[in-house]
């Protein structure tokens, strides 16, 4: 009889332990689910905010860069037997981009005309490098095209086309008018 009573009490004890263990497991599962929800929501909010920061920054960088003055730049006219250096003084970056696209277009479409635009391209990149990389600490890429002429530059060597750009980026497109054609000038930034 005593042995039976003891066995019953032992069973009660084991059952209580199982109940408590179940309680513990349920609490831990609920805890994990709650934390997962919190964490996910916070990450989404953080991502949203980072993209808002980038959106603000890309617009500010683009507007300032377009207004910037290039004190001295130029290009080489290779059309004649003797290459001729053309000097451009105090021009806006917008004008520099227009000149680049137009002269590149002419180089490609008129057999007798040829230009070396390396310096002009370098000075455009220099302004964007100061604005995006040095001041705001973003990587950047600039893309524009006019007819079959294209301008694509970036501070990252591996990025040669739009497809190479990272997915987490912000873009700002401003348009400039070249002749009677509207030309889009898109700036991408990312960290």
């Amino acid at each position, binding site marked *: 009889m005593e042995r039976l009573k003891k066995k019953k009490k032992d069973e009660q004890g084991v059952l209580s332990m199982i109940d*408590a263990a179940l309680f513990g497991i349920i609490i*831990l599962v609920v805890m994990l689910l709650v*934390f997962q929800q919190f964490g996910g929501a916070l990450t989404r909010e953080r991502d949203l905010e980072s993209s808002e920061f980038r959106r603000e920054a890309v617009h*500010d960088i683009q507007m*300032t860069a377009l207004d910037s003055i290039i004190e001295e730049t130029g290009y080489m006219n290779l059309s004649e037997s003797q290459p001729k250096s053309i000097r451009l003084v105090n021009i806006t970056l917008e004008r520099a981009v227009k000149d680049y696209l137009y002269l590149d277009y002419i180089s490609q479409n008129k057999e007798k005309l040829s230009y070396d635009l390396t310096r002009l391209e370098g000075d455009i990149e220099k302004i964007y490098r*100061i604005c995006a990389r040095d001041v*705001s600490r973003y990587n950047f890429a600039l893309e524009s095209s006019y007819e079959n002429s294209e301008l694509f530059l970036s501070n990252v060597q591996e990025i040669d086309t739009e497809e190479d750009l990272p997915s987490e980026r912000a873009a700002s497109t401003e348009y400039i008018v070249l002749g009677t054609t509207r030309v889009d000038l898109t700036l991408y930034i990312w960290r």
Partner: protein
Amino acid sequence: MLRGNIKEDQKAVGGFFFDTPVLLLIILVVMVFTTSLYQVYVPIQEEKDRMAQDRKCIEVKNSVQNYHQILDEENEKFSMEKLEVLEEERLRSHLKLEGDYDYNISFEGLEDDEVWYFGQNLQNDENSESGISSYRIPVSLVDEAGISHLGKLEVNVWRG
């Protein structure tokens, strides 16, 4: 009136000893739960505060960009001449920074290293990446002759 013999009431005594490990287990689980909750809640709250501070930083930047007292009348760019005479109090009242936020704003000419500085100085202990929201953008600064120069606007916001 006691029913039965108290000496035979082994259940009460035994029951307490059966419940002790169970109680300990429950207490342990509750402690693990509250500790974990606290350890998750604190960084989440810090992150939320940081996000609010970042938003405040953008608000300050937008407010500065639209402050006509420092913009050139002709082209809406920042005027060096007006920055030179801008009073700290006027800027502070324009920004209307609520709460316990502090700020500093600097305009820096990239060609001549000229700097216009407004707001509180950053203390060393506050000068950590985690405590400050910073926003740096290039801006155009116009001199007295109307010539535009490339500059930098930096806005820092932190909790005072």
